[in-house]
């Protein structure tokens, strides 16, 4: 089998596994006239979404708010730069996997410059030098190679995802540089900091979500799915990438 067929084959098997496990949770399956075709697990997802909202309201949002209000800006910038730097390395690897040499080189240069000259990533010198950043994750890489998105999933604590993106983040977790730390408490502290930092960046956006959506769950879902689809569509438009097996149909109709 060619490389891309192998990847697709394995991913298809994964998708079948995910679908099978989730299909067992029949209570979570949606049916009837209100069912949305790309969200077959809507009742289950809504339940997890509700759970995430509660945890967020009780724990993550207050901590992130304190973090945002108390931490001096240079420290916040440093923390943000540090984690962005780790992501840049990962983006570079994904760019290679997506056969995009320009983005691969750019992101790798970013990582090098910031790690070596930027105190291990605390300073973002690469942006000062106008080296472009393109955020690429493994879910996009899978999509680029034609892996279908699979059902929409809301993951406990992690939020919106899909069959394909869950596979992506699982593999990324294995390659995470924080795994290189020996002490478990250090690793946990770093991952907690990353979660808090990310949440703090999204505080304004999530406040806005309540204002502009009629139903935050489906708004978040539709925005997430559209955004992921458009990222992969961009690649296809540029001539890179394989279209998904389940073609995205344009649902816009003019009345």
């Amino acid at each position, binding site marked *: 089998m060619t490389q891309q067929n192998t990847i697709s084959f394995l991913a298809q098997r994964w998708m079948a596994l995910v679908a099978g496990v989730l299909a067992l949770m029949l209570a979570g399956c949606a049916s009837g006239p209100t069912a949305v075709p790309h969200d077959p697990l809507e009742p289950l997802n809504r339940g997890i979404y509700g759970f995430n909202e509660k945890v967020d309201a009780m724990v993550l949002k207050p901590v992130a708010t304190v973090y945002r209000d108390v931490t001096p800006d240079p420290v916040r910038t440093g923390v943000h730069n540090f984690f962005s730097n780790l992501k840049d390395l990962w983006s570079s690897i994904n760019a290679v996997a997506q056969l995009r040499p320009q983005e691969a080189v750019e992101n790798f240069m970013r990582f090098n410059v910031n790690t070596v000259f930027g105190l291990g990533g605390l300073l973002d010198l690469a942006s000062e030098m106008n080296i472009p950043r393109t955020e690429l994750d493994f879910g996009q890489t899978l999509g680029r190679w034609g892996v279908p998105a699979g059902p929409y999933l809301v993951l406990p604590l992690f939020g919106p995802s899909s069959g394909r993106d869950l596979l992506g983040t699982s593999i990324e977790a294995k390659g995470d540089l924080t795994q290189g730390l020996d002490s478990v408490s250090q690793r946990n502290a770093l991952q907690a900091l990353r979660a808090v930092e990310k949440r703090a960046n999204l505080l304004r*956006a999530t406040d806005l979500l309540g*204002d502009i959506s*009629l*139903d935050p769950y489906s708004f978040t879902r539709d925005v997430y799915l*559209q*955004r992921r689809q458009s990222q992969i569509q961009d690649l296809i438009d540029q001539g890179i990438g394989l279209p998904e097996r389940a073609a995205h149909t344009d649902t816009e109709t003019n*009345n």
Partner: protein
Amino acid sequence: MQRRHLLKLLPLCAAATPWMAWANDEAPDALVKRVSTDVLNTFKADPSLANDMGRIMGIVDSKLMPHVNFNRMTASAVGRHWRQATPEQQAQLQEGFKALLVRTYSGALTEVKNLTVVFKPLRAQATDTEVVVRSEVRGRGEPIQLDYRLEKTPQGWKIYDLNVLGVWLVETYRGQFAQEITAKGIDGLITTLRNRSAGRPG
């Protein structure tokens, strides 16, 4: 004598007609560029605006909204139920959706500082009546994709859809509205939109 009077009138005519012709003949990407630059410059000139939602909404309302075709946007977002709505309901839906959109767009503007907008070349034939104008908002971090769908009308080009970060607004709200209409009917949707723009939970 008469000719001199005529000649004096000429500058007035000259001043008037380009303005009117301009409104009809301005290219879609030039229109979007002019309007969005105007809105952005207003923000840059007054940093205190960033946290004042009321004033932001006023600016967006007066500078951007005249170039938007609400009727088409609302009809498209409401979908097949639009034909079932009475003209009065249609008007109310339009008002409610407009308030929601102004809030959405203004909310996005509060997120960004030190922006520049870069427009990509327009890919359209001269005879096209519907175009997509693509732009990128650049600040710190990754550029934000911002696209507009415009249609040609006798009053000039009008925006009928907006894309932020790869997400088309009308398509997103189509799902939201369909859900609301299924649950509460068209009047329920109108009430929800009205509550939203008043800041009350829908």
